[in-house]
């Protein structure tokens, strides 16, 4: 019958979609490419938005950062939806194993003195930082020009709310199955001096409606906060007998190294754009100039609160991170304000 033909190969008429052949040549395309390149509509828009007098519903001008070809940026991780949820399901499973272990052994209740305070009074309140970071990233998901940037921002937003939820789970375990620790952490987020620099920063980023500038400012803060909270303190926790902290912190450190890959690639694409690179640099300098001291102070305040609970060298860690970061920014051609 007809199905015998299946043993014989029928030559395909074409290898992939025309836009990809035009862009990359006549070769088979990956699922990342087929699902991410040129998906967003770009022309012949019908109606002006009711909420914006000067921009279309898709418009390159929602940020000061411009790419000559928006698809010159692709996700170095090549993540589209299916591998994204699969990798996050695996990360979620690994985290669940750690938290279940911590819970079943009652490790949260066995944290040595100062570490108990770091978890309850500093780490758990940071779930709100993550929730705010989600809102910053989702701006890019709505306003980016081009699917590849949008897609990275979307996944990052979901990651951040996921981080907020997993930190909340730590809070529930810390509260022995109840939500009391979460309520207390929220009060600290609203009132503790050590957290107000970060809260002010994230709130200000929520009214910075240039998603590119908000993304860069958030990332500068993350580049000081994540190494401190989830790498440096992981080490300190190990030597300080706070195994539970170390066990949990590694998941955020792992996530952050994944996050860095696309953010670094996007910023590099912006700064290196053949036509708009200089203008993009100006925009980045504007963010660095306006935010640098604020960010260093905010994370240093948090670090001081850590050092007050455990002698972990947190402030020194932030100083070192800031110096290294300033060096990287300078190497990229940006100007970092002096003084800090």
């Amino acid at each position, binding site marked *: 019958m007809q199905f015998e033909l299946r043993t014989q190969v029928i030559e395909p008429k074409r290898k992939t979609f025309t836009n990809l052949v035009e862009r990359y040549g006549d070769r088979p395309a990956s699922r990342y490419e087929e699902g991410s390149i040129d998906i967003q509509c770009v022309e012949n828009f019908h*109606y*002006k938005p*009711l*909420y*914006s*007098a000067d921009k279309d519903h898709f418009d390159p001008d929602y940020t000061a950062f411009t790419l000559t070809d928006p698809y010159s940026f692709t996700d170095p991780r090549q993540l589209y939806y299916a591998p994204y949820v699969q990798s996050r399901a695996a990360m979620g499973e690994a985290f669940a194993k750690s938290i279940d272990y911590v819970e079943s052994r009652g490790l949260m209740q066995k944290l040595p003195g100062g570490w108990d305070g770091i978890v309850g009074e500093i780490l758990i309140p940071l779930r709100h930082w993550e929730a705010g970071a989600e809102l910053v990233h989702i701006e890019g998901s709505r306003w980016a020009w081009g699917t590849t940037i949008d897609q990275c921002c979307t996944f990052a937003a979901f990651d951040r709310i996921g981080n907020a939820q997993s930190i909340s789970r730590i809070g529930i375990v810390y509260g022995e199955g109840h939500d009391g620790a979460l309520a207390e952490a929220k009060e600290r987020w609203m009132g503790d001096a050590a957290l107000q620099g970060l809260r002010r920063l994230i709130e200000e980023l929520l009214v910075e409606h240039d998603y590119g500038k908000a993304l860069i400012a958030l990332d500068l803060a993350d580049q000081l906060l994540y190494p401190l909270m989830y790498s440096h303190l992981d080490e300190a926790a190990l030597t300080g007998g706070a195994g539970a902290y170390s066990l949990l912190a590694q998941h955020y450190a792992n996530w952050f190294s994944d996050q860095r890959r696309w953010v670094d690639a996007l910023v590099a694409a912006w700064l290196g754009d053949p036509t708009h690179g200089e203008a993009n640099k100006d925009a980045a300098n504007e963010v660095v100039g306006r935010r640098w001291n604020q960010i260093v102070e905010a994370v240093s305040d948090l670090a001081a609160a850590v050092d007050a609970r455990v002698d972990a060298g947190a402030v020194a860690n932030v100083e070192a991170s800031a110096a290294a970061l300033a060096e990287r920014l300078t190497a990229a051609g940006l100007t970092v304000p002096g003084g800090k």
Partner: protein
Amino acid sequence: MAVKAMYDYTWPSRSAAELYGDDQLVHVWWRGNPYFVSAQTFRFPKAMPFGALVNDVLKGFFTADPDFVPESLDTAAWKVDHEDLVPDLEASLEANGVGHKSLLEFSL
């Protein structure tokens, strides 16, 4: 009713008469013949004589229907924008009351 927007929402028409210069769009509708699934839109000079439209354009165009007899248009009943029209074949479309995006209808 005005559009509710965050600013004064007054965007122009993308089909306005001035976008067509000395020409205009006209919808020609053969009423009662679904073989042409809808009225047909054309771009014609406003100054085109009505007779030229019928004889030089429509008599040829509608032969896409194998049952169409071109001469039947000579005795067709015409309407423009739902009003009866006795066309002046020498006069322009404009003078016959056929404006931009008018519906010019005929029955055989």
